[in-house]
């Protein structure tokens, strides 16, 4: 049985926190107590096993949802607000609160126009300092659009109560996108221009309970006329 004091010193040594003044004492103890080596080896083995656990990546929409909540306080459920919004100038392109309780809030951000890369919502409003691209994040649904006027991918990411729709699109002429979900509507335009200067890329955050079931309809318009329709579906969650 090893004295508690020496167990503490062994642990401190393994953790790299052994004070210099205790080092000689521990060495003497280890020489005199071969059994203590087994304790140290077991502890090192445990630490080595724990080191194999690699950090998990946070969900891609986490940063955006926090920034959204900080910048645009979510209104009380059931509050009245406009049902349709046109995009505005500035980094925050769209902020809306929907009545009815299904969608508590929906916010679309202008994000860096970096076509072809995975969604990195840390680009939201261009404020992040340390960015971890979420290239490993997997959309739960996505559609590819290949039209004369616009092309690219629209992807849906999700977490427990939130959905992020990433519009990675390039337009050859002015294209407006209308997103309709459960009777609510959001509109925006100004996508990256194919072969031209960088413009906007958008992420639309849908927040609130009951997002499953109703599809997310996406309409593409030029000159006010619908040129294409797409739909994204939110698969049922595993959770109750």
């Amino acid at each position: 049985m090893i004295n508690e004091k020496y167990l503490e010193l062994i642990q401190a040594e393994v953790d790299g926190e052994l004070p210099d003044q205790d080092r000689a004492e521990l060495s003497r103890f280890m020489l005199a107590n071969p059994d203590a080596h087994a304790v140290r080896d077991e502890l090192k083995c445990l630490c080595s096993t724990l080191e194999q656990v690699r950090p998990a990546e946070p969900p891609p929409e986490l940063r955006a949802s926090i920034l959204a909540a900080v910048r645009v306080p979510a209104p009380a459920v059931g509050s009245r607000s406009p049902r349709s919004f046109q995009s505005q100038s500035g980094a925050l392109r769209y902020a809306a609160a929907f009545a009815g309780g299904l969608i508590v809030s929906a916010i679309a951000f202008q994000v860096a126009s970096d076509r072809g890369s995975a969604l990195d919502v840390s680009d939201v409003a261009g404020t992040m300092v340390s960015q971890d691209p979420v290239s490993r994040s997997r959309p739960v649904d996505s559609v590819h659009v290949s039209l004369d006027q616009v092309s690219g991918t629209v992807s849906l990411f999700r977490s427990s109560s939130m959905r992020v729709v990433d519009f990675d699109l390039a337009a050859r002429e002015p294209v407006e996108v209308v997103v309709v979900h459960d009777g609510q509507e959001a509109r925006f335009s100004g996508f990256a221009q194919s072969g031209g200067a960088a413009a906007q890329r958008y992420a639309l955050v849908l927040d609130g309970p009951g997002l499953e079931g109703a599809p997310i309809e996406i309409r593409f318009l030029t000159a006010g006329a619908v040129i294409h329709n797409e739909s994204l579906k939110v698969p049922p969650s595993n959770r109750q």
Partner: protein
Amino acid sequence: MNEDSDGILVQRCREGDSRAFAALLGRYEKPVFNAALRMLRNPEDARDVAQTVFLKAYEHLADYDPKYRFYSWIYRIALNESINVLNGRKRLVPIAGDEVDERRGADDDVESEQVSHRVQAALMTIKPEYRAVIVLKHFLDMSYEDIGEILELPEKTVKSRLFTGRQLLKDALQTSGIL
């Protein structure tokens, strides 16, 4: 260096600079999420906890005492929120699919993924007070002093809990055949 710049960012946040908050979020999003994930196992709960942590931090920045390290403060909030979730679970039926989803991590390697899975399962068998010190030590790389500050415990207690927690974790991992 990090601590100093944290302090500057916090000060800028208090002055209304939203970019400073975004910078703090960028710096601590991943460790906070991982701390919650290791405490709770369920990635969706961890995500919710991480969100709550940052919103609370933002809301209470005025209460933050700069004599403490910012990360101590935010990790303390993260662990307290995680423990609140754990306490809430006691009153609920177990949730189906309550497992760590490692797919988003760098764990393309199957063996490493299995180790992660078993370690997480073993972590869940030990009491939260022991789990917390292990999470701080092994997954957030905190020193004894840091852990003491975060958990508001004397360093002696930190060492004692860490030793006991490791023994319990080792037993659980031996049972699962990983050690």
